[in-house]
């Protein structure tokens, strides 16, 4: 057991810290920065941040150096997420490109695909999204119905995708579609790279309960993919899709570190708010609950480190990531709910009228998606039950 970092890892951390100090938007660190409200301005801001990261070689840090990455180790990737969480850095708009599509193309893409797409992923010129879920294929992802039919050297795609993050901003999409109906769900799926700026692609943002638009519906109406844009073999898309997901090497590192920060914010709020003229943190019930959250956030972090140790030793992540996902999503919900709750009757107000900081209300509402997106808690519990505890498999058709 050793919680220390090597000199090389510390140097990596320091380099990143210095870079963040110099490159975060004006006013970001002292909290005076104001996020652009207007959608286009916000997109421009995020693209700009992506470009800065690329220029500093902080986009795609795990990529091999020959492709512009840093060949970062797993621990360095974790340090990256730690430092980004500490400063609550702006979201990385091309995260699907840099974290998943790029590495997948480098692993199994053709030379054409590597030359055409990879450099623009890294420099942020092309933003990517990922077309997986469909209205009838949520947890049961293999049930996708979007069809791709070959016509000459093109594939014509029809169907609908849903819950597609970044689709309204994306230039390209990594898309799964059915190319054959063999009767077996996992067969006959093919992975395509398609252009989002074509007539056959229509994106409609989804209005969420937090009055925001993180996700989209994507309608494919005779959308076109070229033969050269099939990833892997035709009909092998399920496996290719899994390869893509396997590049999420550090699991829920980001969420885990964000929750450490959230705990601090929760405690700080309890020190500021008052009840009967005394700081809320002196109230026994609040105090006890807070320390309970402290234990859980620590446990989350330490569980994550234990699983990371396993990943380093085994050379690849195991199903334990599902335990971390399950725990982090539920703990996030609990802490945000408590954060709003201790604001008392005024806690029902949001936006400009939020009593403390509008993020509490916004994030609390957003947290209801934590246990749905990226695999519901029910699916995570099945994965843990079946792959770790080896309990009998769920009834499936």
């Amino acid at each position, binding site marked *: 057991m050793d919680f220390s970092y090597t000199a090389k890892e510390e140097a990596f951390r320091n380099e990143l810290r210095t870079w963040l100090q110099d490159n975060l938007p004006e006013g970001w660190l002292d909290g005076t920065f104001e996020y652009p409200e207007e959608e286009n301005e916000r997109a421009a801001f995020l693209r700009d941040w992506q470009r800065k990261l690329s220029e500093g070689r902080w986009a795609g840090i795990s990529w091999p150096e020959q492709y512009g990455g840093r060949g970062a180790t797993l621990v360095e990737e974790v340090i990256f997420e730690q430092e980004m969480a500490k400063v609550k850095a702006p979201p990385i708009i091309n995260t699907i490109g840099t974290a998943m599509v790029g590495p997948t193309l480098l692993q199994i893409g053709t030379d054409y695909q590597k030359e055409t797409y990879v450099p623009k992923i890294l420099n942020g010129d092309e933003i990517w999204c990922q077309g997986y879920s469909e209205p009838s294929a949520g947890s049961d992802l293999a049930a996708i119905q979007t069809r791709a039919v070959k016509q000459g050297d093109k594939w014509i795609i029809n169907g609908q995708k849903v819950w597609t993050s970044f689709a309204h901003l994306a230039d390209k999409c990594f898309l799964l579609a059915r190319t054959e109906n063999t009767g077996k769900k996992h067969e006959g799926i093919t992975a395509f790279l398609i252009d989002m700026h074509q007539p056959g692609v229509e994106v409609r943002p989804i209005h969420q309960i937090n009055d925001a638009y993180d996700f989209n519906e994507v309608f494919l109406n005779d959308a076109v993919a070229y033969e050269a844009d099939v990833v892997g073999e035709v009909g092998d898309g399920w496996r290719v899709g899994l390869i893509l997901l396997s590049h999420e090497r550090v699991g829920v590192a980001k969420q885990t570190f964000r929750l450490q920060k959230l705990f601090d914010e929760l405690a700080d709020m309890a020190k500021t708010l008052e009840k009967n003229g005394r700081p809320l943190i002196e109230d026994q019930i609040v105090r006890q609950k807070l320390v309970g959250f*402290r234990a859980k956030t620590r*446990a989350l972090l330490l569980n994550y480190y*234990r699983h990371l140790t396993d990943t380093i030793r085994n050379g690849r992540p195991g199903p334990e990531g599902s335990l971390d996902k399950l725990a982090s999503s539920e703990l996030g919900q609990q802490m945000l709910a408590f954060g709003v709750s201790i604001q008392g009757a005024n806690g029902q107000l949001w936006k400009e009228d939020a009593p403390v900081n509008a993020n509490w209300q916004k994030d609390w509402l957003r947290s209801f998606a934590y246990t749905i997106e990226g695999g519901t808690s029910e699916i995570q519990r099945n994965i843990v039950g079946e792959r770790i505890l080896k309990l009998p498999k769920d009834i499936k058709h």
Partner: protein
Amino acid sequence: MDFALNEEQTLFQNQTRQFLESKGDLTIPRSYMEGKEEVLEELWKGLGDLGYMGITISEEYGGLGLGDLTLVPILEEMGRVVVPGPYPETVAFAVPLLQAYGTEAQKQKYLPSIAEGKRKVTLAVLEASGELAPSEVQLQAKVSGDEYVLQGTKILVPHGDIADTLIVPVRTGGTNSEYGISLVIVDADQVTLDTKKQISMDETRKMVQVTFNEVRVPKAQLLGPENAGWGILQSGLIHLNAALTSTMVGGMDRVVEMSTEYAKTREQFGQPIGRFQAIKHRIVDMKLDMDSARSLSYYASWAVENKTDDMVEAVALARSFSSEAYLDIAGKNIQNHGGMGFTWEFDCHFFLKRARALENHLGSPESFRETAAVEMGWNGKKALV
């Protein structure tokens, strides 16, 4: 960054499991409950032969000179089998205190015999209220020549009837304050103690009321400076609470395993019940709690071994979380076993009762959380009620 047991610690874990299986696994606590108290003696001797009594004792006194972390896998294995006996009290309370505060003569007298498996030590700290607080230490120690004369009663002394040695916080001064508490080492074979077994739900962890009636102990049996015993006690309790947490994690580990195995084999509606999400998901939640308790416990023992700044907080968080989680999942284990889990013949109740025995022992989950709050700088004592 490496957050796992090392090779040596894993080896200890495997050896302990083999040893306990060879002694009958869960028939050990059952035999003990049925009155075969010799199983404890056999166990103790075996652990001594394996060298497990001296893990943290320095080599010059016959031990291995390893840290608290090495005890973790052994304590977990003991928790898995709900073994009887004051092992945590001996190796994770008496040993660190003797090493830190014992005189040379005390070290010579006690440490080698502990290492050989020839001495069981327990802690006699609680009095009538069962609360751990300076005001509750009222057992009087009057000086008479070069002796203390002890008068008073301690309760809930783990295995106080068979312990060779008791470490006893007594009052040598003051009335209710921390000042005036001293620790005295009492050898059971040198004095006459009036012991009375208390009827505990957990029959694998005997609770004993020990009455000291004009018990005379030489002043040389004082552990650490006179009147400064409260602080010394706390430094010992850090080790002990970390160790008790490890035994709870072991119990949790076993409970998850029992539920998992039962859910694979028990069939209803033509299916193993583990196929049903109502059962499967509950077991997953139990595992998650167990993993969290284990991570907090590993970290706590690592912090204690390395004397980190957050050592007290780390132990308090681990202890409060585990005390509640163990009780909770031991109950869920009964539910997963259905009617069989409710029977005396099935082993499920061992874990429930051990969890209950430890829940508030030496501090409630609430009190440990308050300790953590104060450690985090949330100005204590002023808390509103």
